[in-house]
């Protein structure tokens, strides 16, 4: 029971971090059709910006300010980079963001050095939030969940309840009509790209302080981020929310379970030992393959439901 509760909490909180990270990517893709390869780099930038700002103004102001800085940078990148590349099609845009990712990587290395920086959890978030049996649930993780949920709420309200949200929705489905009605669609694009990167920046602040702020912090996230977006259905925020939670939970529970095919056969009454054919495969435990499960999910999803969980793409 203890294990179940803790795994549930771990899975949900990690899933929410993944959602923070991938929501910006989904937003940008759904509106602009740009698969932003530099998204994880903006995530990293958020962490470093918050680290540097935090030294001067404290963690909580930096938590607000760093995403804004990253968002501003994102908006500039859209205005002076992406928009120029846009007429040459999606491949050019893809290559542009791909190159940008490397560029940001190098900037971070030159600016902050090759090793991790000591970006620490602020004193207010030290220690356990509550204790489940013997395991402590850290305040930081609770904070991570809170920020993600607030962000989800804010983005949802912004898109559905405000005028700018209506324009964004209109520009998403009928860009020419929206433009004909006098709305500045390129500026909407710039806002969305800036907003999307700001969300990545926010995720970076939380991820950087909860885990590690180092130049390689983005590397391990790029593939998993794309899994979330594809499984969620590419253009659906709600979809990527579900996909994030699903992946967080799958990983968290799979690691804890030492099930194997051999064990299953044993339970069914088939004796399995070192001489059984395919023994190395049979003894493979679920926990050992847990990190690959999201990719398995990706492949299965593309085979059986290519539009993703909540995707709207007609096939």
């Amino acid at each position, binding site marked *: 029971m203890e*294990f179940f509760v803790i795994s549930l909490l771990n899975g949900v909180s990690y899933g929410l971090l993944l959602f923070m990270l991938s929501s910006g990517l989904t937003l940008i893709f759904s509106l602009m059709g740009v698969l932003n390869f530099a998204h994880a780099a903006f995530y990293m930038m958020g962490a470093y910006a918050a680290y540097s700002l935090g030294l001067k103004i404290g963690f909580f102001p930096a938590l607000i300010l760093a995403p804004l800085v990253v968002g501003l940078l994102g908006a500039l990148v859209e205005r002076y980079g992406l928009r120029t590349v846009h007429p040459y099609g999606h491949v050019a845009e893809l290559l542009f963001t791909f190159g940008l990712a490397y560029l940001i990587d190098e900037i971070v290395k030159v600016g902050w050095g090759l090793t991790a920086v000591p970006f620490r959890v602020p004193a207010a978030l030290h220690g356990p939030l509550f204790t489940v049996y013997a395991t402590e649930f850290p305040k930081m993780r609770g904070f991570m969940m809170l920020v993600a949920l607030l962000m989800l709420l804010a983005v949802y309200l912004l898109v559905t309840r405000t005028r700018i949200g209506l324009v964004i929705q209109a520009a998403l489905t009928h860009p020419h009509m929206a433009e004909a009605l006098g709305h500045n669609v390129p500026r909407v694009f710039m806002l969305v790209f800036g907003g999307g990167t700001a969300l990545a920046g926010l995720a970076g602040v939380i991820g950087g302080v909860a885990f590690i702020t180092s130049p390689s912090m983005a590397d391990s996230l790029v593939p998993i981020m794309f899994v979330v977006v594809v499984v969620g259905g590419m253009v659906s925020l709600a979809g990527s929310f579900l996909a994030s939670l699903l992946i967080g939970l799958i*990983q968290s529970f799979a690691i804890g379970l030492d099930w194997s095919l051999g064990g299953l056969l044993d339970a069914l009454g088939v004796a399995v030992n070192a001489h059984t054919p395919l023994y190395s495969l049979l003894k493979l435990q679920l926990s050992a393959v847990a990190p690959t499960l999201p990719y398995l999910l990706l492949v299965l999803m593309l085979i059986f439901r290519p539009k993703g969980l909540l995707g709207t793409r007609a096939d």
Partner: protein
Amino acid sequence: MFNLKRAFGALLLSSSLFAGYAHAQTVKIAFTDPLSGFLGPVGVNNMHSWQWIAEVANQEHWAGKLKFEIVPYDNKLSPQETLNVLKRVEDQGIRYIVQGDGSSVALALSHAVTQYNERNPGKEILYLNYAAIDPLLTNGNCSFWHFALDADVDMKMEALTSYLAKDKNIKKVYLINQDYVFGHDVAKAAKEDLARMRPDIQIVGDDFHPLARVKDFSPYVAKIMAAGADTVITGNWGSDLALLIKAAHDAGLKANFYTFYAGTTGVPTAMGSAGADHVFEVAYWNPNNKKFAGADIVKGFKKKYKDDYYTMASYSGIKYLADAFKQTKSTDPVKVAEAMEGMKIQSLNGQEEMRKTDHQNQQELIIGKWVKVNGTTVKFDQENTGYGWETVAEIPAYVGTLPTSCQMKRP
């Protein structure tokens, strides 16, 4: 004018006496390891360690008039790239090569050097391996041209378990390692050693996770807690170790962590206070050893590179070479290699011996505990964290001395 003439004459005389010795006033040593990418920071720190010791050796005249010069090459942690580096080293006539990060690289390099030396008599290259610790290197795949300065996995585990075995409070041990050859070596050695020294200890978990890909270790920590482990043994390094220790601290796991690499670049910063009093490391040296041997070197290194000196194998390595140069009055790798076999030197951890049968350095190992700097037993911190290694045990060399299956082919 007269003085100049005499000096010139003396120079001529000495060069005829020590042909090939006095001529080569500077011995170039190629250094190859990852200097960019994921493990770049570690490689750069290691490179500085060698450069620093070369500088110290030159100032203190370890090898008389001979000077050491380290020539760095980036091998990007790739065996293929390392072989390209070796080609360049051959072309430039450098006769000594140093490498350490990655056993896969070391195995490839050892093989390539041996092959090159067989085919090019008179141009032999000597390979000093300061950190790759797969036991294969000095057993099944041993080579006359390869010298292992670091203790291998089995030796370190032997030292670690001999220390751990004395703690009667340890009942349940959990093994968590990276899923590649080194991680499996560690898990295997831990299981064997524990079964021999403390059969009553229960191994409650044996997990492997992908190398440098896991961001959130809390599910692993939940599993360790569910298993009721009081001790964790891990060969993890880099962010895999820092994240594991951080997650354990956050979840309130009170278990002790026995590690190989908690002192390497980047881990102390990321670990910080989270690891305090719970993290142990087995190594050949740390700056807070009982005699504080090497304090000047640590201080000088910090001043010059703004970084911490921990690759003490660079000290031993240059010392072995310097002593062998002096003993043979030559810098010919064949003579030097022969002289180094069975040679004893004084290093920062006391006397070391390069065992003749397999070229595995035999040395004292020490167990360090991650604690707050206190000015008495812990004077040096790491990466300005305010925490450093307190020496809790010095394990004499004989404890870690293991038999070898090496069948050395000598030229």
